[in-house]
């Protein structure tokens, strides 16, 4: 069986800064991979390479066994770290963005109904549809971003730090939403986080990014028995260990 997403020897540098130094990683269909790693280790860069927003220096990216292309974007959904809602348009037009344009364009009324249904799915009342993103709280913006990511029923969804900046209760709500929606849709997902509660709620598989390589990769069930010292330090959050910290 071919992997849904297959990365091979992916490399990316910014100037003399080598962020990705050869990432090889397979994500199977309907898998929920969570990528963990410290801040600035290149997790967002990795996602943006797969999305085609950043051109990698070397290596290959395959989606369903085919090289990734501009076409693959049609099957992707993405929730950005800061939600990245378009602040020039009301929430429902954000959610329905893809449905209002492009090849699979729907009539406005129909697109609006779908948008409101998606907003309800992520726990936002219909009244939020006509608000502007700046009128929403951080947690509501994340929910609206989630609704936009799933609006066109993508097969592959990416989540960049879905719970960063939220209080623990709201984080729990977003984690639960993500895992419910993902299993409902049968989508393949890659989630970036450094929040271990997200890992436990969302992951079927975990990969740890460290110094530009995949340091550890395995099913979530192996996480607690894994002996790797880097992984152990990350999970326990200890300041002492093989991962150097700046103090």
């Amino acid at each position: 069986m071919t992997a849904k997403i297959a990365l091979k020897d992916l490399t990316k540098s910014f100037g003399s800064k080598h962020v990705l130094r050869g990432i090889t990683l397979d994500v199977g269909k309907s898998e929920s991979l969570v990528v963990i790693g410290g801040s600035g280790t290149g997790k967002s860069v990795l996602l943006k390479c797969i999305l085609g927003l950043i051109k990698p220096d070397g290596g290959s990216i395959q989606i369903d066994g085919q090289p990734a292309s501009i076409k693959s974007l049609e099957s992707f959904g993405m929730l950005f770290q800061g939600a990245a809602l378009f602040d020039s348009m009301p929430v429902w037009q954000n959610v329905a963005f893809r449905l209002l344009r492009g090849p699979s364009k729907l009539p406005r009324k129909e697109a609006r109904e779908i948008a409101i249904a998606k907003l309800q799915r992520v726990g936002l009342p219909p009244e939020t549809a006509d608000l502007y993103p700046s009128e929403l709280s951080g947690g509501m913006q994340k929910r609206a971003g989630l609704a936009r990511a799933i609006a066109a029923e993508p097969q592959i969804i990416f989540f960049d730090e879905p719970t960063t900046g939220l209080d623990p209760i709201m984080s729990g709500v977003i984690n639960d939403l993500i895992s419910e929606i993902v299993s409902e849709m049968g989508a393949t997902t890659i989630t970036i986080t450094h929040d271990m509660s997200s890992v436990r709620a969302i992951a079927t598989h975990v990969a740890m990014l460290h110094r530009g390589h995949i340091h550890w990769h395995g099913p979530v069930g192996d996480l607690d028995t894994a002996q790797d010292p880097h992984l152990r330090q990350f999970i326990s959050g200890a300041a002492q260990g093989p991962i150097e910290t700046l103090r």
Partner: protein
Amino acid sequence: MILFAPFGALGRTTLSLLASIGQVALFALSALRHLVTPPIYLREIAQQFLTIGWLSLPVVGLTALFTGGALALQIYAGGARFNAEAVVPQIVAIGITRELGPVLGGLMVAGRVASAIAAEIATMKVTEQIDALRTLSTDPMKYLTVPRLIAATLSLPILVAVGDSIGIFGGYLVSTTRLGFNEAAYLSNTTGFLETWDVTSGLLKGAAFGFIVALMGCFHGMNSGRGARGVGRATTQAVVSASILILAANYLLTEAFFSA
């Protein structure tokens, strides 16, 4: 060694200037390529006509009104030195339509619109909204740049035409109330003297300036640095480069029209 430092700095500045000219040219070519290939976002174009064209009317109108009035006084003062006060209507008309209407209109729109475009697009870049557009299968060049270029290029000539009329009216107002010109004679002197080319050459300049304004706004917005500092720098650079390019283009176009 220290003696040669200025030459090194000059060389680096020249190289980086040439590099940015190249970047702007490539950006413009890519924008034009996107302009002629579908999809076309009509809703965005209409929206931009409103924000760039319609909402600039007060600024351009007021600028023209005051300039027309001041111009009439100056020409009267200058003309009086060789008993040629009577040329006020003609010189006001030609000065406004050929030169001041388009140039001042372009500069005012550069201040109002190039900065707004650059700030908006740079903020969208910093907050990952441009990335979000791409992931929603929408090309930012088509969705953001093309509508602004179209709207600015087409609405500036209209703004200039309105500005021309208001500018001439400003001259008329001052001349008839302050300088004792006869109303009917002023108007017939203006209309009888102006040639079509006086007006259309100004409108053509307006179109070129509109293109420059939108191009600089979009270019600096799309290439902004990261963070709030990046947004600020992009905004400043958009206004400064648009203004300088407008003045340079104005000279080149005038020279071309002059020789033609």
